[in-house]
């Protein structure tokens, strides 16, 4: 007996919806096995990881705080991936955007007006976009592989950040700790609720709504989808592949830079040597778990945020390695991509037969 994959004539709508659900379910099973193997009670592990964070308001707010940058970045990445541009460097665009957004409160701390925040956000988005445009220009001009260049620029951005907070941008009153000065109130995003949640969250929701409409209803969205699926047909439609590559990278970089600035200005309040627990990479999983669809990315962002908080939870209460969250995120991406196979293929069980051509 063997299992064959039979190509479907059209996309299966049912599987497109079911695939992420099945993937989450399979991840749960794999996580249970993982807990069992490391000698912990799998049920308790799953509960602590996935359920407990949802039971009190503090962790619910924290969930939204962590989901916000993930959703923003993943929305930009979705545009990249839909148009066949493999931007793996959102982490770098996040960091570089945060740097640019922090320029005013660190270099001109006395510039405190109503314009301070909007300018910071603008600079952050522009900085992220500029960082994103580097691999895009390299790709369109010299045909370099954007996967490699965008990824390598992550490390460049991280090292620039590290240099700045240890060197020129170090807080003069900070006892030589590698941190920038604290942002003034005028440079801090207004807070919502009693935790670390800021107006970054509603901004992310607005971005999701706008992008959903752009992708579904406008010619630009059409262009993005056509170019991703069939570049030859795209050029027949009169769309320019190069211009779209620049657009997608600039948009993704801009949103990542915006997320970076809001993270620094809203949740952290200063620059630190490390400002991201890998949001830019985790957002790749968010984008695919959300089927590259902004509305679904909103939900996927919450699921992945849960994995951060749940990871901390099991680490604190059960003594499991802190790598467990990363492993579970990786498993999730693996299962999502695997389940996606069934959108265009249908499994079929074929009764057993011999493997070689022979006379019966």
């Amino acid at each position, binding site marked *: 007996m063997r299992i064959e994959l039979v190509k479907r004539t059209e996309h299966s709508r049912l599987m497109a919806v079911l695939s992420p659900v099945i993937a989450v379910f399979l991840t749960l099973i794999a996580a249970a096995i993982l807990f069992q193997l490391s000698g912990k009670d799998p049920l308790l592990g799953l509960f602590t990881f996935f359920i407990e964070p949802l039971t009190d308001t503090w962790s619910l707010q924290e969930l939204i705080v962590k989901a916000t940058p993930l959703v923003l970045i993943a929305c930009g990445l979705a545009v990249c991936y839909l148009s066949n541009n493999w931007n793996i460097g959102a982490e770098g665009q996040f960091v570089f955007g945060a740097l640019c957004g922090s320029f005013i409160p660190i270099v001109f701390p006395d510039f405190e007006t109503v314009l301070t925040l909007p300018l910071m956000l603008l600079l952050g988005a522009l900085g992220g976009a500029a960082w994103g445009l580097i691999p895009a220009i390299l790709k369109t001009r010299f045909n370099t592989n954007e996967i490699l260049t965008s990824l390598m620029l992550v490390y460049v951005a991280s090292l620039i950040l590290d240099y700045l907070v240890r060197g020129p941008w170090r807080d003069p009153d900070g006892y030589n700790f590698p941190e920038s000065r604290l942002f003034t109130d005028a440079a801090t995003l207004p807070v919502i609720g009693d935790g670390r949640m800021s107006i970054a969250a509603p901004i992310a929701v607005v971005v999701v709504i706008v992008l959903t409409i752009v992708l579904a209803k406008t010619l630009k969205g059409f262009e993005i989808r056509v170019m991703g699926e069939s570049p030859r047909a795209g050029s027949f*439609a009169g769309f320019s592949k190069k211009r779209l590559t620049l657009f997608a990278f600039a948009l993704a970089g801009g949103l990542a830079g915006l997320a970076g600035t809001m993270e620094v200005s809203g949740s952290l309040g200063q620059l630190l040597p490390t400002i991201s627990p890998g949001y830019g990479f985790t957002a790749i999983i968010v984008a695919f778990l959300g089927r590259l669809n902004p509305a679904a990315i909103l939900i996927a962002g919450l699921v992945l945020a849960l994995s951060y908080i749940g990871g901390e939870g099991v680490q604190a209460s059960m003594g499991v390695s802190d790598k467990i969250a990363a492993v579970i995120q990786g498993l999730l991406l693996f299962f999502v991509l695997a389940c996606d196979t069934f959108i265009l293929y249908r499994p079929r069980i074929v009764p057993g037969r011999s493997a070689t051509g022979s006379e019966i």
Partner: protein
Amino acid sequence: MVGGMKPLAENEKKSGDTAQTDRRASGDVLLDGKSLTKRFGEILANDRVDLRINKGEIHALLGENGAGKSTLVKMFYGALEPDAGEIIWQGKPVQIDNPAAARALGIGMVFQHFSLFEALTVVENIALALPEPGNMKALAKRIESISSEYGLPLNPQDIVADLPVGIRQRIEIVRCLLQEPALIIMDEPTSVLTPQEADRLFKTLERLASEGCAVLYISHRLEEVKRICHHATILRHGKVVGECDPSKETPSSLANMMVGSEVIGVSHSGKAPELGPARLRVADLSAPARNPFATTLNDLNLAVHAGEVVAIAGVAGNGQGELFDALSGEVRVTPEMIYIDGQACGAKSINWRRQQNAAFVPEERLGHGAVPGMTLTNNIVLTRHGTNDGLVSAGFVSEGQSGELEQKVKTHFDVRMSHDNPEARSLSGGNLQKFVVGRELDRKPGVLVVNQPTWGVDAGAAALIRQSLIDLARSGSAVLVISQDLDEIFEIADRIAVISRGFLSEAEAASGMTRERVGLLMAGSAERSQGNDRKAV
């Protein structure tokens, strides 16, 4: 060579007809497919198909696109497994699990699209496909002797990239012959050949048949089926609907059997069209090759007038794709190289040209003319978002408008689909072609450039498309058809030019052209004639 065929055909006539079943059961059966069934999802691709091939027989397999020919052949070649039924090979039931097993039995296949490594030599390519290639020098000698013996001379040391398509096909055939097959399956072998090359292939097939090797011959070209095949099996909607001796049939009776109804011939209203001004003009068009396997265009000149259909004949890969890309604007050239209605537009975008009421239909319908995974409504937007159809306002795409256009194209061009507004990839080749052509014709373009309008399209759809091209021209548009199908060209063209290695011969009136002359131009005298013209000027 037609003369050489006739005795065989007459033998068949004598023994055929009344005693046909007896003769065919007389023990020289090579392959007997019994009640073969294959289902893909809801579609029954092959429904209890019986096919019997005798030794030394050239057996035609006829049918419209989607009739189930490829499915059937793939089961013989081990690429698909039948759901039911059995294959009897030389008297014994066999199970063919993969192509290697098929080759071991003695079944070889020459594909429509070649599977050769362009950077390797002929002998290297052949060695790769043999289970035990042995010594390369000895193999090269065998290739030389077998290929010349069968009238398909090959130089084993040539690099495939340098060879024209006709020679590449020879490599595939010789590769098959080296394994001493008892049955060779050929899928549309002449679609890439000049008439002269096809003649040579027919001689080879005849020789093979006389040595007892059977050939299963798939072709859309009914003229050649009638000419060389001893027996034909006709498939329609996955079922065998008839068998016949093609030499006793006419191409139109064969076509009727395939389609199941009368195929309406293309009608020209009036003899010579009234020519208007040149609406599409190509002046000294040159373009360098964009990659090592592309063709350079060399000083092409052509004018297509209002009211006429001009056809460009030529063997695949001689610059047709490059010419189309330059005409459509997907590749920009110097402004003065292309004029649409008198306006220099060589450097303008494809949408600018569409706004000048030009329309384009590329050769590849899936992936170039249409996006496979998008619905037909979305595929309407693909080429019509830039024209004044009101599909886009303020950046938003109107789904109602594109849906209406899709319905219009669907009814006018008889595009058949299993449910409303499906993805492009789910349509059969013929139906998608009707859609892609209909999407442009619906605009009543003043200039239409179409590359391979009926490639791989069934007879019914082809007739509809050809008729609509002629009708468009007669209504005052300029129609340029690029095609490899000479039957099609002679059916619809008012004037014919030939493209060869990036050179274009002067367009001549179709009434004064013969197949032989076109064939000679295809084989390279187009470039010489163009070269001479230029020197004379």
